[in-house]
């Protein structure tokens, strides 16, 4: 029997939305306040959804200790209290929450072996959320 398990995590980080491919005016027009030169921060909530058969022996899709351990060392350690613009994955990409979703999806889908990754959903604020399920 296949079930989907979702776990929510939080981290805080800063970013500035600015694209080298746009002029100064275009950046301001596109990103508005998010283009302010010193950046700003968010409390991000990340939902990781994994799926798989419910193990007969444990009653679990995957052990939460494994999922929490992986997310702590590979996601939270990497992003919490950091400036996203300074990270390798955002050297060329704008650290929008869309791109953050994709970056986190790639880390989990490559590294987490205990269950299948279904999707990554990020709430940037209580008003905005983003989801990525990989390329269909």
């Amino acid at each position, binding site marked *: 029997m*296949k079930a*989907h*398990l979702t776990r929510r995590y939080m981290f805080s980080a800063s970013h500035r939305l600015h694209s080298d491919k746009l002029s100064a005016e275009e950046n301001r027009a596109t990103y508005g306040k998010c283009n302010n030169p010193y950046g700003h921060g968010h409390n991000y909530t990340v939902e990781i959804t994994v799926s798989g058969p419910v193990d007969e022996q444990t*009653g679990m*899709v995957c052990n939460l*200790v494994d999922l929490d351990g992986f997310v702590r060392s590979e996601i939270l350690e990497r992003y919490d209290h950091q400036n996203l613009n300074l990270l390798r994955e955002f050297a060329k990409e704008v650290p929008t929450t869309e791109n953050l979703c994709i970056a986190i999806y790639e880390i989990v889908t490559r590294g987490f072996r205990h269950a299948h990754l279904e999707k990554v959903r990020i709430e940037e604020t209580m008003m905005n959320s983003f989801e990525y399920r990989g390329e269909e």
Partner: protein
Amino acid sequence: MVYLTRKTEFSASHFYHNPEFTPEENQRVFGKCNNPNGHGHNYTLEVTVKGAVDPKSGFVVDLKQLKDVMGREVLDAFDHRFLNKEVPEFLTKIPTTENLAIAIWQRLAPKLNAAQLHRVRVYETPDLFVDFYGENFHAKDFHGGA
């Protein structure tokens, strides 16, 4: 097709233990959840049904009927219970959130006449929930129930 979700809450205690494991394995796999005296959660249950909108009533399902079925089949059995000792499914199955979602699916699916069960979502805490869509569901693998 329209989807309708009804939410409810129940509080229950449980612990995780597999009699086929050694005490050390139980401790390693289940950690704090292995404490045989149990611990509790405030669970939130979301039941989503789907169906065509009835042209006469404008409803997918009679909400009163859905609420009654959830009350009778789930809340009466689970709320303020020690799941391992008082709910038949969990005399043999470990009452993980996964198995709770499957047990609730099994209890509700046959009792909903008009609408079709789409999803059972069980929140163990606000940071952890399980969705069951009836995928690969085999009633014979899941004894107990009403």
